[in-house]
């Protein structure tokens, strides 16, 4: 089988001029240039999102607290009917214990705009008090369409811009690879399921982050910092990327002739953006502090449910919540997060580079996912974003991480009754990933790439050997497949009602740790590789 493939490859190289791309089922589309394929893939991605929207959302028909859908709707109700000052304040009209607003002001503004939209077409759905738990055919559609419009207005353009820029900057060459890349970003199953199935607006903050990354890669650092601040002000979870942005921009400033001016410029930009977004709450210290305290709900504990991070997994052995106070746990998690971020930050401050920046984003978000306080399963979307951006570099790992990210979301999506779209989107991802003639189908090539890079370091080789040994991969893949079936068909033993969740968490955690190690070492190898190249250049 393999030999046949190799022979075909040889033949393919020979007549690349005539028939080279005919293996690729979409070459006729790509032949027309990259824009038509962007257009078609975007429309298709939109269609898929609409189709996912037909399925249930989180907390559908489950009074009294419902789910994330009700939270978002409630925020629209609050922001629409109350003045900005009362949004974050507990009062007789704003009961914060019922889905109180706990995201930064940009989310509140977005809720307000969407609230206006809902009010024009279905006023009942955002009426103060009476609309709690409101569920109707048209209201549901309108809510779904607010997510879709945010996606189309923010995430899609950012993704198209990034991929377009990336293909030019880093010269990936083949148009079909670019088309494959864009479909990997736009058809990522996890993001679609969480936003359009479960119901959230991650597309906004992730889209803003992606736009910021693209701006940073095209040397528009000021724009990048503004966009990133906006992302941060939409969801505080975007802070997962903060170390990478900070160190990359700092590193670039330091390379400049007068670093102090550059740093001041960036600082002013950041402060200015924050000031504009926080304007209604800057009138008094209490108001600002009230908002801040809403954003950091430490009382909710160090972890929730069964998230595949360090604290939750290790709690099988060490009962963190019983042994330590919230205060000390906060310090523990902060220290652990910063310590694990540090290597990648140092690397970026030392040698900022486009590729290194993308790896730094990956590493810092993984550190936060694994070690920070109050992590949610859904936060796996954050490490997943930089990896989809690196799809062409890390083809196999993209597949592997998407697999485990999906797996870690399984209990959540099962609760939301989203198993059918889970399976459909996962198969769609696999089908698109392994498009005949596309980069995913050509894994042999990436293998040779790995070989050339293996020479760069022993540690790398070892980690790569452990993580990506075909036997281990096969075994884990089989395990997770069997676990899927078990989870969906069987009841856990009564004495351990969350046994399956715990096993899923353990498997995913083990993989995420390996990913973190691998990407960290890769980032460092990158700088070694670069510096040695630079040295060579200097010598010449």
């Amino acid at each position: 089988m393999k030999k046949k493939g190799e022979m075909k490859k040889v033949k393919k190289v020979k007549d690349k001029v005539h028939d080279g791309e005919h293996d690729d089922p979409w070459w006729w589309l790509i032949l027309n240039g990259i824009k038509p394929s962007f257009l078609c893939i975007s429309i298709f991605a939109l269609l898929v999102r609409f189709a996912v929207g037909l399925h249930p959302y989180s907390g559908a028909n489950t009074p009294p607290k419902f789910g994330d859908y009700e939270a978002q709707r409630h925020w629209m109700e609050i922001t629409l009917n109350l003045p900005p000052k009362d949004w974050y304040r507990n009062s007789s009209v704003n009961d914060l214990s019922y889905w109180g607003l706990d995201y930064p002001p940009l989310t509140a503004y977005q809720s307000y705009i969407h609230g206006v939209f809902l009010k024009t077409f279905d006023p009942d759905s955002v009426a103060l008090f009476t609309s709690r738990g409101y569920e109707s055919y048209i209201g549901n559609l309108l809510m779904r369409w607010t997510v879709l419009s945010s996606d189309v207005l923010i995430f899609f353009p950012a993704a198209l811009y990034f991929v377009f820029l990336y293909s030019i900057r880093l010269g990936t060459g083949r148009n079909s690879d670019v088309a494959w890349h864009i479909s990997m970003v736009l058809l990522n199953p996890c993001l679609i399921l969480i936003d359009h199935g479960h119901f959230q607006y991650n597309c906004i903050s992730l889209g803003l982050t992606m736009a910021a990354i693209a701006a940073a890669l095209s040397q528009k650092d000021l724009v990048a910092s503004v966009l990133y601040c906006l992302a941060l002000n939409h969801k505080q979870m975007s802070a997962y990327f903060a170390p990478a942005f900070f160190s990359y921009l700092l590193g670039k400033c330091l390379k400049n002739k007068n670093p102090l001016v550059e740093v001041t410029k960036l600082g002013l930009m950041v402060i200015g953006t924050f000031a504009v977004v926080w304007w209604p709450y800057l009138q008094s210290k209490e108001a600002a502090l009230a908002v801040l305290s809403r954003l950091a709900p430490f009382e909710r504990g160090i972890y929730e449910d069964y998230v595949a991070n360090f604290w939750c997994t290790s709690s099988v052995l060490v009962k963190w919540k019983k042994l330590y106070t919230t205060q000390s746990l906060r310090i523990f998690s902060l220290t652990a997060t910063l310590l694990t971020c540090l290597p990648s930050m140092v690397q970026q401050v030392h040698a900022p580079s486009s590729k290194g920046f993308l790896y730094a984003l990956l590493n810092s978000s993984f550190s936060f996912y694994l070690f920070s306080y109050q992590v949610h399963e859904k936060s796996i979307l954050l490490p997943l974003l930089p990896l989809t951006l690196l799809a062409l570099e890390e083809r196999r790992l993209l597949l592997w991480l998407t697999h485990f990210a999906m797996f870690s979301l399984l209990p959540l999506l099962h609760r939301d009754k989203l198993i059918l779209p889970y399976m459909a989107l996962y198969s769609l991802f696999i089908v698109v990933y392994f498009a005949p003639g596309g980069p995913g189908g050509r894994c042999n090539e990436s293998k040779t790439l790995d070989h050339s890079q293996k020479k760069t370091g022993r540690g790398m080789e070892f980690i790569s050997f452990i993580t990506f040994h075909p036997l281990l991969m096969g075994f884990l893949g089989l395990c997770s497949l069997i676990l899927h079936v078990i989870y969906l068909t069987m009841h856990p033993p009564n004495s351990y009602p969350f046994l399956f969740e715990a096993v899923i968490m353990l498997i995913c955690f083990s993989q995420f740790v390996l990913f973190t190690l691998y990407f960290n070492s890769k980032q460092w190898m990158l700088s070694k590789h670069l510096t040695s190249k630079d040295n060579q250049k200097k010598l010449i």
Partner: protein
Amino acid sequence: MELRESPRSPAGVKQLFWFFGIATTVKLLLIPAYHSTDLEVHRHWLAIAHSLPLSQWYYDETSEWTLDYPPFFAYFERFLSIFANLIDPRIVHLHHGLNYKADSAIYFQRISVIISDLFLLYGVHISTRNLASLKRYLVWVFVIWSPGLLIVDHLHFQYNGFLFGWLLLSISFIAQGRDLMGGFLFAVLLCFKHLFAVAAPVYFVYLLRHYCRGGLVRGFARLSVLGAVVVAVFAAAYGPFVYYGQIQQVIRRMFPFGRGLCHAYWAPNFWVFYIMLDKGIAFLLRKFGFNIPAPVASFTGGLVGDASPFAVLPQITPMTTFIMVLLALSPCLFKTWRDPRPRLIARSVAYAYTCGFLFGWHVHEKASLHISIPLALVAVESLEDAKHFFLLSVVSCYSLFPLLFEAQEYPIKVLLLLLHTILMWFCFCTLFPKNSKGSSRTSAVEQWFKLGWVAKSYLLGVVVVEIWGQFLHPYLLGDKLPFLPLMLISMYCAIGILYSWIWQLKRIIMLS
């Protein structure tokens, strides 16, 4: 000139499944979407086929959805009901299953359609395996990713993909010169769904002239072989019912002529103009003071029945429509008689379905798929075919829009049509590129794919009609004239189909 790839290359199959895989995931996602009463119809048929003995299938009146498809389809339902019974016995229960809307029933039926589409895949594979890879991909885009099939089968709910598999297989066998096999498959198809019978005259004439030629003795021998095959197929289907002496009842169920000339929503065909003409004349005559009584059964009220719905113009009977279909078909039959050629069979079949669609009795808008699916096979043959197919495909898909009338599916159907149109556009742009090696220089005719201003403005009109129906009409007129948007859609699409009919006729006559 054409780069011929080795037939049945494994790579081709891989790509075929890639196309199918993408379509399948979308179909899976659409499972919870709106479905018409056809879902309950087919569920009830599962119950009939499972719970009743064969002798009562066509007599059952437990539900208003009596079995009105030919026996092979009933056997097919019997086959499916075995699995349905394993999954949830209530699906196939004659009484408890009535209007059963549990997830198990919906999932089972939806997934059965998705799986039966494998047959369509096989049909497409066989009929495109000798094409160059580019043309093959394009046909796959048109058929496997057909928005019309998706809307009718996977949203509205029917098993057309499966049936078109048989049709495409039959056409491709005939195109390859294997007439007997083609005739056999068509006979089987007829025993699945009799609506396909409109193309039977074409098949009959073609097989008579192409297969049964070569002298009197040989011709007669072949005719008897062919006849034996067809009789055998029909015997397999109807034999048991003949044995029980129920054949009349079966036929009565299959041809319910009491349903009226037009469906509640008028299919975009010739009769739309007839009705409009009638209304126009009646309106004018009333203006001039004549006393014209309003018809008992009105079309716009959605009421259908035996009473004459026309105020002035003569009543239309099933016989009239039958004769008109045959008349419209006769040039094609004549041509086939004179010169039966394998290459033209797909066109002739599509033309026959166009005639049936335009002039038939109680035509459903879904039948426009019968035109666009076979034509997809010939759309890649020449530039003119491509242009025609582009227009026809858009119109045929757009005419299906009223099937999905709920807000939830609105964006889905619009995006499906939009994506299809854009994909089709780029498909043809690749097939007929602008800088085609110098040939365009010498000839005065432009060789690359582009649409004339008539076609462009017609397609733009589709957008206008849609915007009027969806947004302007409710805004400007409110609840007044509620039938107007649908009437506009069927009239506008009828113009397109009428054009397509004339174009196809011209094409068949001109092609020698």
